[in-house]
């Protein structure tokens, strides 16, 4: 599903250049649940941004579902993001003046799905994350865990090939974190490919595979026995 070869990325900081990713080779198959771990500054967020086409790579190649991702202009990147990817952010990034349902329906709007159909789909996904009764509520009327569940529903609504989650539990307490992980695991069980960036080991252990990043290179890539989050909920 995802294929990365010899990926390099550096940032210019004034006259200095900061080499963040120093040759990453990495493949993800369909239906995998991968945790990308590493301390801050290890390059894990940069990797995720490149995977999410929010950032451009300097060297190497990136193929997503057989499509080479390179030389994208903003419009093309936007279309690919819309078609291939779902995002879940640490700070939820819900649009605060839109109700939960409207937030979930937003990616569908950019897919030009008609309004009625959009709302039906949004409700379906909200039901899947257990928030159907909260459809008309604004984000500030929801708890952190609920917000993240709405964000996950939004990411799923566009039926992406890959779900990218950047510290999805970073702003949540452990109980809520496990609830969210439980949800992610269930979505993964349905066959969706999911990448999670995290620095919490217990969260990483709930995935099926852990990739360790340190100073811009992969130091460890191992399959783990998945811990089901449901047992903590």
């Amino acid at each position, binding site marked *: 599903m995802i294929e990365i070869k010899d990926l390099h990325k550096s940032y210019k900081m004034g006259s200095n250049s900061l080499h963040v990713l120093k040759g990453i080779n990495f493949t993800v198959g369909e239906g995998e649940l991968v945790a990308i771990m590493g301390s801050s500054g290890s390059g894990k967020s940069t990797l995720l941004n490149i995977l999410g086409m929010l950032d451009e790579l300097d060297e190497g190649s990136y193929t997503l579902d057989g499509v080479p991702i390179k030389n994208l202009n*903003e419009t093309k990147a936007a279309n690919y993001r*819309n*078609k291939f990817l779902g995002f879940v952010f640490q700070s939820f990034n819900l649009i605060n003046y839109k109700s939960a349902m*409207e937030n979930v329906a937003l990616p569908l709007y950019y897919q030009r799905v008609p309004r009625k159909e959009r709302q039906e789909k949004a409700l379906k996904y909200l039901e899947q994350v257990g928030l159907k009764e909260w459809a008309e509520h604004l984000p500030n009327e929801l708890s952190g865990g609920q917000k993240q569940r709405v964000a996950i529903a939004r990411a799923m609504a566009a039926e992406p090939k890959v779900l990218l989650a950047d510290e999805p539990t970073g702003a949540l307490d452990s109980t809520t974190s496990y609830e969210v992980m439980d949800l992610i695991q269930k979505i993964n069980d349905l066959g969706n490919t999911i990448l999670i960036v995290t620095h919490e080991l217990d969260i990483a252990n709930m995935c099926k595979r852990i990739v360790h990043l340190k100073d811009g290179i992969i130091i460890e890539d191992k399959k783990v026995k998945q811990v089901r989050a449901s047992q903590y909920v």
Partner: protein
Amino acid sequence: MKFIFDRNTWQEIFGSISKNKTRTIITMIGVLWGIFVYIALSGAAQGMDNGFDKVFKTVSMNSMFVWGQSTSKPYDGYKTGREIQLKLGDVTKLQNRIPEIQYIAPRIDMGGFGTDPVYTVRGQKSGTYPVNGDYPVYTKIATKKIFDGGRFINDEDIEQARKVCVIGERNLQELFEKDEDPIGQYIRIGSVYFQVIGVHKLAQGVSFDNDTAIFIPFSTFRKLYNTGDDVGYLCIAAYDDVDVVQVETDVRTLLKTIHRVDPEDERAFGGFNLGEVFKKVSGFAKGLTFLSLIVGIATILAGVIGIGNILLISVKERTKELGVRRALGATPSEVRNQIILESVFLTVLAGIIGIILGAGVLSIINNMTKDIDFPYTNPTVPIPYVLGALAIMVILGTLIGLIPAQRAVSIRPIDALREE
């Protein structure tokens, strides 16, 4: 351009606008106020313009008066201080020599210009009134509204020097009983009985005569007062497309030749140029209209810039939202269109409300000034001006929307999302 007609686009924009009410209202107030001021001002200026038009409607706007005074320079053997008396013969000469003249009405009067008004009697009632000797052509220069059943002096009255008169509304009130029909009745003017043939209505606005003036045929007047060919003053109307100031110069030059006055002598003839005055007044009204147009457009401009400002701030505020939208697959052009359409939509909506409010205020002013003696009539703004203002607003709204829209697009989604 397809997105403009897409219902989904508008639903999204309407959602964004209606859910940020404070921002929307503040944004709209600028343009609303601008268009309101524009409509109210230019309507008011138009009202004043119309008011002046109405005031001048009763007289020929291209008209002037000229009368004889006394010379201030010796000329051709005549000494200084000679009284100049206009004669009936001057009328024909002027008419023959100056083709720009449309009408000339010679008048002679008692009661104006330092002479005593005439004692007039009917039965037990009496009064002193100015009396004018007139030709029928006078009504071509100064409209005279005659009440039903009456008429003004006609050519036969002149030919036969009939003893007939047209009286004013005040004369009617003072000399006749209420509800009495004056037509055909006789009144004594000085020592001679005249038959009343009409009552003239006092003209609103500019008028040469007041409502006590009595008109009698010129020929009767000269017989009665033994004035011969003497003329008090000449009312001259030029054709509409003629510069009446030039006509006045021509008339004075010709009169100087006829009456053997030094061409340099400015004081031998007195005159009053209504055309010139009218030009000044209408110039003033035009200037006012123009000024209000400028002020109005400037205010609209300020309002639109205000919209741009607030949108720019809101883009900064919405950086994250726009970043999220782009992460979810909004293309840069979709984001740009959304911002521009928000701008245009707000501008037009505010503009329409402003137009309605402005029109409302104009109609209130109109009702209030209806019965006031002030040159103000029917304040309106021509439809093309309104449409023009709307067009300006749409164009400016688009242009000003471009700035925040471009700003929104230039922020990369990753930076937008990172911003906390």
